[in-house]
Structure formats: structure tokens, C-alpha cells
């Protein structure tokens, strides 16, 4: 069963449509050992299209059987998200969207990492949580097809200003002293406003 699930994930991770200038892609790496996806609550798997009033979930899952630990930032500082219409014009954010668009301190040397909570995943254990409904975050006035870009920010151990993948596991974690924020590439999905 696990093999089957992983196979399905592998299919979803590679979904990227290049019909437009901007590729539609529902899964991107955050680090080499972590994958970020936007997930449909209906299927529980990554999707490339959502309705504007549909709850979108976000997923982080590992790429190996090792436990991979990272620190989650507060929700209002975790995501960089934008919505554009079919003319590539950015849709303004609603009050809730603005409130959840804070930019964290991107320094690579964050001490006191215990302010953030650790999350642990593996290739077969995802960290899947609520993201948002587009209608709650944007002022979408017209029917049509939109494109949503979302990047995720997480906090990881750093060595020489680069993520220390060896340090992102349970055994090594307590010896870490330097942490920094890494930002994923954008996932890009279609949003349908009906």
C-alpha cells in the first residue's frame, strides 16, 4: 500500500503544465529533502486546480525514509502568496490576506530557535495542514480563471549560510546552533472563480 501511495505522489510531484508562459506546478522542493505541495481536501493529494471557495491544504513531506525535522514559522509569516488574473494582473489581498503576509527576518543566524515548533516528516509521513480558501485571502470580484503562486518559508539548521541537511534529523538536532529561513520555489495552481 505504501508503495502505491508513493507512486501516486511521484506522479503528482511531476505535474507541470507548460501550456502558458507560467508553468502550472503543484509540488516543489523546499530543500532537497522536503517537498511542498498544495493539496485538495477532496482527494488528499496534490492538485493543480481549486475553486476559489475551496479549502486548500498544504503539505510538506520528506524524500527519504529518514526522519526530517524543521521548524515551522508562525502561520502569518510562513507563506508568500499572490493571485493574478488571466491578464497577469495581481488581485488585491483582503484584510485577512494582508494580515497573513508578514515577512520574517530572513537572517541565516537565528538564535533561540526554541521559539518555533519542530515538525517532523518522512517520505511516508506528511505534515498536511490547512492553508486557506482563496476567497478569504483575496478580493476576487470577477468570475474567471486565476493563477495562485505560493511559496513556503521554514526554519532549518544552517551551516555556512546553507541548509544543513545532515542536521535536519532527530539525533543531530540538539547540537544545532544556527538556523535560517529557507523559501521554496512557488507552486502555481489554477483558481476558478464561479
Amino acid at each position, binding site marked *: 500500500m505504501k508503495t502505491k*501511495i508513493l507512486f501516486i505522489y511521484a506522479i503528482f510531484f511531476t505535474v507541470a503544465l507548460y501550456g502558458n508562459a507560467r508553468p502550472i506546478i503543484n509540488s516543489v522542493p523546499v530543500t532537497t529533502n522536503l517537498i511542498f505541495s498544495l493539496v485538495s481536501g477532496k*482527494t488528499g493529494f496534490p492538485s493543480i486546480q481549486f475553486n476559489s471557495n475551496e479549502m486548500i491544504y498544504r503539505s510538506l513531506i520528506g524524500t527519504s525514509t529518514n526522519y526530517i525535522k524543521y521548524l515551522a514559522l*508562525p502561520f502569518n509569516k510562513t507563506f508568500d502568496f499572490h493571485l493574478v488574473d488571466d491578464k497577469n494582473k495581481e488581485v488585491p489581498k483582503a484584510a485577512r490576506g494582508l494580515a497573513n503576509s508578514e515577512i520574517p527576518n530572513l537572517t541565516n543566524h537565528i538564535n533561540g530557535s526554541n521559539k518555533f515548533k519542530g515538525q*517532523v*516528516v518522512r517520505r*511516508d509521513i*506528511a505534515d498536511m*495542514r*490547512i492553508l486557506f480558501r482563496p476567497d478569504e485571502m483575496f478580493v476576487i470580484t470577477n468570475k474567471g480563471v486565476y493563477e495562485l503562486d505560493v511559496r513556503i518559508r521554514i526554519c532549518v539548521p544552517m551551516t555556512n549560510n546553507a541548509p544543513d541537511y545532515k542536521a535536519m534529523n532527530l539525533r543531530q538536532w*540538539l547540537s544545532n546552533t544556527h538556523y535560517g529561513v529557507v523559501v521554496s520555489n512557488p507552486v502555481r495552481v489554477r483558481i476558478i472563480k464561479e
Partner: protein
Amino acid sequence: MTLHIVATNTPEFCALNQSVTETGNDDCGGISHRVSTLSRTAETKIELVAGGLAPSGASRLVLLKASADEYPSFDVEYWDPAPADFAWTPFYGGGSIPLPVSALLINGQPLIATATNANVGETLIALPAGGTQDIALTAYPTNQNHYSFNVQAQDVQLHILANGIDLSTNTPEFCVGQQVIFTAQFDPPIDYSNIVAHWHLPDKYVNETNQSFLLESPYPTVYDINQDLLTNLTTSCWYVNGTGGTVSIGMDLLLPDGHSIPVAAKGNFTVYRPTLSNFQALDNGFTWNSPTLQGQMDWSTTINSKYDGFIGVTQLLNANGGVYDTDGEDFLDGNTEIYGEPNETNGLGEIYVTNNIATHTTIFDDNPSSVAAPCVNMVANFKDYIRFKPGVAGDTNIWITLGTNGWTMDGQACLVIGTSYTNLPPASTPINTDEFPEWVGVRHE
């Protein structure tokens, strides 16, 4: 047992007397002229037979709709031929002048006019199942004492609906934590003035939430059973444990005409409770990186559920002394009820999707730490509530505890000498419990 009326078109049986009196017989222009007066009296009753097993003790609720029509005087005071002699007497048809509902009584009780016809009245009676009862009908006509009755009896069913599902024909399953709304519904709908009802629900459920007052949020939600909420036609609850069973409602139905009738109904449903499995203590221990003493606790467990929902852990800490001192009281550990939830506005934890096995296991991670100045003492007991909330964001379902486990830490270190002792054993295996977490304070991050 299904109850139904075996005879809805009840036979009229009358203590009927009929006679003809000759009051004239003379010759009128060579034609014999005779005046006949018909006398007909009837004590009108209907016999109602209720279905069901007689010894069951169950009652049948029957809606009686009745009307009466008076015969015109012409039909009564007529010329030859006399009805006693010929079959086409006008009495064989019904009356043609409707009597008002106020002129009718059934078993001595006045009738209530129906919404669609002011000349048709209705009332409810209760019959023992399997029993036979005579229903006495009375009318007070305005012109003379000849009228016909029309009576219809209709079985009134009291159904229990659970989240809109009729329990008389279904046995639905509900997940613990899912709000279940029970509704008692009459079919056909009936008029009543008041109802004194009492629901009986199988264990184990809660039906009331209260927010404890604390100086700082998040506040614990206290769940209990409020008996007063079990006295309406609709009641709701959340199951926390058990397998379900029989839900019943008994009520005294006070009708608009002033009399009351006892009524009852019941139905069955089942309760589903997710389980925990595959608990693993992943990591534990202290590390001293002067000047910081840091603990580590990691464990994982798999939730097995037939229903989608959310997984979360609520962690309480209790300490006497040290940097985590709670004076021996239970404190919520963290800024949110669901530990480690980065989104403090919804606090819904991790999503559980039945068809994605990667969402079925949760990993708990905690790294308590403190800086020595010049020494630090980290001692505390932690209790973790492994919880599941079925459904979707924004619904009325609640978090249910599937199990609890615990872990302790006891470590001390000083800048000069380093660690004196460090003890942080693995977390215990979860035990199955439905206990809700409660706390008297919050230890924010």
C-alpha cells in the same frame, strides 16, 4: 415492532331505531292522501382497531378527522313514499348542510378546525396497540336532529431523525466528535400546545460546552451532560465513546383542546471511534550546550479512522519547582490547544485523509530548553492527549481524545560544572481514554 392501524375506515355501528307514523289518510279529490313521519334515532359510534401486539404496552397515536352534515328539512319532512317502504329514502345519502366544527365532539372532546377546511375538525387520541376502542361521536345541529358523520382515522407516527436520517428505517453510524442532532418528528404533522419530552441517549456522550475562565487564553473547554437540554423535540450531542445503541424519546403531548397524550419513539444508531496503533518512542534525552540545557522528546503514533478529520496533540505540563514550575497544577503547554500548531487562528492541527496513508501518522516533537544563570533546573511531568476531530474546518464537531501518554524530564546544569543529572526517559505507550484535557493556566512559548 411496526405499528399500524388495521382499520382506518372505521365501520359505523349505530344503535339505530327507525319507525314511520301515519298521521293522515283522507280523500282529497278522489286521491288517497297519507302523511308519513319518519323517526330515526342513532347513537353514532365508530369502532377503531389499533394494530400491533396487545401485550406490548405500546400506544398508538391516531389522528381523527371528522365532519358532520345536516339533512335539509325537506329530506326529513317529505311526502310518500315513506323511506321505511322504499329503498331510495333520502337518508341513504349524506346530509348536505355542513355543520361547524364547534358543533362536534369526539369522546366528549371538542375538535380543532383543520387549516384547509373550517368545517372539518381533528383531534388526537391514543390507543393501546392491538386494542379496540369505541369512539363516540356527537353533534349539535342547529335545525333538527338529522345529520350524517364522516370520520377518518390516520395513524400518526413519531419518528426520530438523527442528522436528518430517519431511525425508523435506518441505523446510521456516527463518528465520535461528530455533532449528532436528534429530532422527533410527527408524520403527519400535528398541532400541539406544548410538549414535555425526555430523551434517553446511550452512553457515552456530552451535550454542553462551557469555557472555563482563566486569566489568559487559550481557555479549556469543559464538556458535560445537561439534562435540561434533553427535554425539547430537538436535542444534540457529541459522542466520545461507546458503540451507540437505542435512542428513545418519551413525551406528554398537550393538545390545543387541553387534553394530553403520552407518546414515545425509539431508534438505533452506531458510534465509531478511531483507534491508535504503532506507537513508537523516537527520541528522548537532554543535551547541554552551555549555557543552554535542552531536552528532546519525539514519539509517533498512527490513527486509524474511517472518517476524514484532523489530528492534534494537547500537551499539559505539571511541575513543582524548576523553571517550569506550575505549583503542582496542570498548565497548557504552548500558545495553542493543539500543540505546535503554527496557525493560532484555526488551531486545527494536521489533516487526516482516509485515502492518503501519509496523513495517518503524527509525529510529536518537543524541545524544552532553558539557559543556566548560573544554574538551571528543568523538571516537569508532561501529559499528551492524542486527539481527533472528524469533519472539515468550520463545522460543529469537536476534538475527542483517543488516548493519553506521558513523559517526564528532570535535568540540572550549571555554567561552572555542567550537568549534574539529566533524566528524560522515553514517553509511555498511550492508553485508551476519552478524557478531555483541562488546565488552570497556560505556559506560553
